[in-house]
């Protein structure tokens, strides 16, 4: 539990980044977190790296679909369709 009366230290702030990004901090917690960030370039850099990490992960493309796998699945669908009619 975070003390409401004290300033955050960096080691506490880094554990709040996900709650912050997910919008799960109370407004009081968020105010303290943002106040810490304003005064702390290192934690700003950390938060920015977490954001960059999310961006880079979002760009990891799945492989392309093999035509054979696609055709097999369409066959599966046709069989299902055939069974019903």
């Amino acid at each position: 539990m975070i003390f409401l009366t004290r300033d955050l230290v960096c080691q506490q702030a880094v554990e709040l980044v996900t709650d912050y990004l997910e919008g799960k901090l109370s407004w009081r917690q968020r105010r303290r977190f943002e106040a810490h960030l304003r005064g702390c370039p290192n934690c700003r850099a950390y938060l920015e790296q977490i954001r960059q990490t999310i961006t880079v992960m979002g760009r990891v493309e799945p492989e392309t679909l093999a035509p054979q796998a696609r055709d097999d699945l369409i066959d599966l669908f046709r069989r299902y369709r055939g069974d019903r009619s």
Partner: protein
Amino acid sequence: MIQLLRSGDEDAFTRLVEQHHTRLIRFALTFVSNRAAAEDVAQDTWAAVVAGLGRFEGRSSLRTWIFQICANRARTFGGRERRTVPLASDEPTVEATRFNSSGAWSAPPEPWPSVDDRLDAEALAPLVRTAIDQLPEVQRQVVTLRDLEGLSAQEACEVLSISEANQRVLLHRGRARVRSELERGLGPVGG
């Protein structure tokens, strides 16, 4: 979409397969250890989707429903029981050695070059893949659903049958670990 599928529309089904099949294999690989098994799980998933179209109630999105089926197939694959989800630990996600005794950074992160640079993103891709592959199982599942697939927190919870709070802690730990691997790959701390 669901109406088209129910009516047997092959184009609609083909689009769905093109959108999701290799993503399902990628997701299945977070449960099973080899590629062939993951392909089987994805195949099984489609069979269950097709057979279950009539039962889909639309309470979740079609994608969430498909991924949920995939998770269930993957878990039962080879008769494997659902493992209990380990309670997320509250160990620090940044090594304690990087802070001084008052909790301020002693070895702060070195800002990275912009990842908006396309070249950087391409160079980073293998590093990111390896980092994700090395995450503990459930962290990897959460990170895959949230950050690779772009599911919402609620959708990820539905797919994995975990609580919202646990999901968030797993996501937190997973992202922190991937960040730390990227930091390692991009150059030594303070170097």
